[in-house]
């Protein structure tokens, strides 16, 4: 990177941290530290979006479109419906009870052990996710910037800790406005530049035709298939449950909209998210599809992680790898002619010629993918510990090698800002839950406001340090965004099930829901184990379906146990 890029990157990050600390100086009460209580609806909306949009979103999503097309967008179809349900059912109760955390409500509806179970599940799954949220961009950025992993982990972790510990919820919300501006500005600049970088004879619509004919604009699929992770039906059912759990019961999100000046401001913040999230994801995926088109006209590397590719070139397998790179490049030359032919035939409008040109191109694309698979096998031989899934490197590799000076620094600032925005919400929520649901509730009930404020800061700091340590010991998952969604899908359905029982099934009481939650959690973990090992039989399903299954399971088991308890009592 050039010195201008470094100035843009560090200038942006230091400004955001300094602004967060300065803007929230003098935060001296628990209420302003944990709730904020002053945000307008658009600040809440931006904060909700910034919390969900982690670095993983910007690293993985364009790569997802590059390799798998845009069908991932369907995962977000359930989000607007979830926003409405939370606005109608969850939010008024949180406001009425004036809670700091979502789990406080469970004590008033059930008992303290159910509240603590839900809070504990949150601490476990969000604590794990906080580590991934730091680790995911850290490992990719360390490779791209050629830094040690520890440095990138520390930069993200320490910067976040500074303003989150100092200003609490208000600092998180204030900095997320700047971070969202950086994220959106950077991505729009990247989107415009990738289209401008296409050859002069290739227009915007030509590019879309190329992407479409090569299967990258597969946005909607109405076919019902339980084992298919992303289609319309999984988006409108399984994902609704996931988003209800995430936005309705995950403290890292609940704390964002409880920072509103009033119930109406919080509701409008949720509505803003429901309105803008799908188009936002569409734009990010579309940029990934356009990067794919860019690489139909410009030779892509056979493997997008340059650092790993360079290590393989100088290893014993170097010759085999270089031979595959040559083969890949020669297929690219053929593909280049085929894609030019496709553009010409699309302009002619002759359907038969278009189909013929598209078939030729797709067959060459298959050959090219085969060579990529062989190259990954060689990498595996040369470096057994190396990650051969390079999906998460595609977008930033494109940025570093093809975008102008200044914009590269801005795009790195996008990734760091996204990592910081979601991590700060997580640490803020982990600190709040530790203090409100455990420390204040069970350990020290009668301390002063000042003592709880200091405790909140200490717990936030402790979770920050723990997340950094955890991030330092993680190994890379198949795909980072899916790793986060998987962890969520294993734990969220149980917490959502408890809340659904609380809101809609008065018949089910504390002991029944508590036992049901523990049994259901065991069933979900067993189900995932069987699915991973191909032994689930009739219950084979994509992990997004765990959300609906687990939630329904808590309700059903709770109902059966409660009936048993009632019958025993009556007899």
């Amino acid at each position, binding site marked *: 990177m050039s010195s201008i890029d470094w100035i843009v990157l560090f200038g942006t990050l230091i400004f955001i941290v300094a602004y967060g600390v300065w803007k929230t100086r003098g935060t001296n009460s628990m209420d302003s530290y944990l709730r904020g209580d002053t945000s307008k609806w658009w600040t809440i909306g931006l904060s909700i979006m910034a919390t969900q949009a982690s670095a993983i979103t910007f690293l993985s999503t364009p790569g997802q479109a590059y390799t798998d097309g845009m069908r991932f*967008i369907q995962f977000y*179809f359930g989000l*607007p*419906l979830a*926003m*409405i349900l939370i*606005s*109608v*059912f969850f939010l*008024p*109760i949180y*406001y*009425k009870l004036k809670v700091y955390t979502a789990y406080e409500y469970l004590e008033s*509806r059930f008992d303290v052990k159910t509240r603590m179970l839900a809070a504990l599940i949150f601490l476990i799954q969000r604590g794990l996710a906080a580590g991934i949220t730091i680790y995911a961009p850290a490992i990719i950025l360390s490779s791209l910037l050629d830094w040690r992993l520890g440095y990138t982990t520390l930069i993200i972790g320490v910067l976040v800790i500074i303003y989150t510990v100092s200003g609490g919820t208000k600092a998180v919300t204030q900095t997320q406005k700047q971070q969202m501006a950086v994220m959106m500005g950077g991505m729009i600049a990247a989107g415009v530049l990738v289209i401008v970088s296409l050859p002069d004879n290739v227009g915007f619509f030509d590019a*879309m*035709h190329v*992407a*479409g*004919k090569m*299967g990258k*604009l*597969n*946005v*909607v*699929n*109405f076919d019902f298939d339980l084992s298919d992770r992303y289609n*319309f039906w999984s988006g409108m059912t399984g994902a609704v449950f996931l988003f209800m759990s995430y936005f309705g019961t995950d403290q890292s999100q609940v704390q964002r909209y409880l920072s509103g000046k*009033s*119930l*109406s401001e919080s*509701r*409008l913040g949720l*509505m803003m998210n*429901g*309105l803008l999230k*799908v*188009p936002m994801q*569409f734009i990010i995926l579309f940029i990934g599809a356009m990067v794919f088109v860019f690489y139909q006209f410009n030779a892509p590397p056979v493997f997008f992680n340059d650092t790993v590719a360079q290590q393989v070139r100088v290893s014993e397998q170097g010759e085999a790898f270089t031979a595959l790179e040559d083969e890949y490049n020669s297929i690219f030359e053929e593909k280049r002619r085929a894609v030019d032919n496709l553009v010409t035939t699309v302009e002619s409008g002759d359907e038969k010629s278009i189909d013929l040109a598209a078939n030729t191109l797709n067959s060459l694309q298959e050959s090219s993918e085969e060579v990529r698979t062989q190259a990954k096998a060689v990498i595996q031989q040369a470096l057994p510990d190396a990650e051969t899934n390079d999906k998460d490197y595609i977008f930033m590799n494109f940025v570093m090698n093809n975008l102008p000076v200044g914009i590269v620094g801005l795009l790195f600032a996008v990734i760091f800002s996204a990592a910081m925005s979601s991590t700060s919400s997580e640490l803020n929520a982990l600190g709040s839950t530790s203090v409100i649901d455990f420390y204040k509730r069970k350990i020290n009930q009668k301390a002063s406001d000042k003592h709880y404020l200091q405790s909140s800061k200490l717990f936030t700091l402790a979770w920050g340090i723990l997340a950094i340590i955890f991030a330092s010991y993680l190994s890379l998952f198949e795909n980072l965004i899916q790793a986060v969604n998987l962890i969520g899908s294993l734990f969220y359905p149980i917490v959502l099930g408890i809340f659904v029982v*609380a*809101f*809609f099934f*008065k018949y089910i009481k504390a002991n029944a829901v508590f036992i049901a939650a523990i049994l259901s959690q065991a069933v979900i973990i067993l189900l995932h184990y069987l699915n991973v090992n191909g032994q689930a039989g009739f219950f084979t399903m994509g992990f997004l379906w765990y959300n609906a299954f687990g939630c329904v399971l808590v309700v059903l088991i709770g109902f059966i146990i409660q009936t048993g308890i009632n019958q025993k009592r009556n007899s």
Partner: protein
Amino acid sequence: MSEIKKEKEVPVDPPPFLGSWKNIYWLLMGNLIVLILLFYLFTIHFS
């Protein structure tokens, strides 16, 4: 359903535009349906 009944007792201000929260929810669902329809046409047109 007792909690929901209690919730109805909480005074809720109308939204600053569109008159009622119900209209805001319809706007959200209408927007989603239009987007899905456009995405479907987009998929068909370019595939």
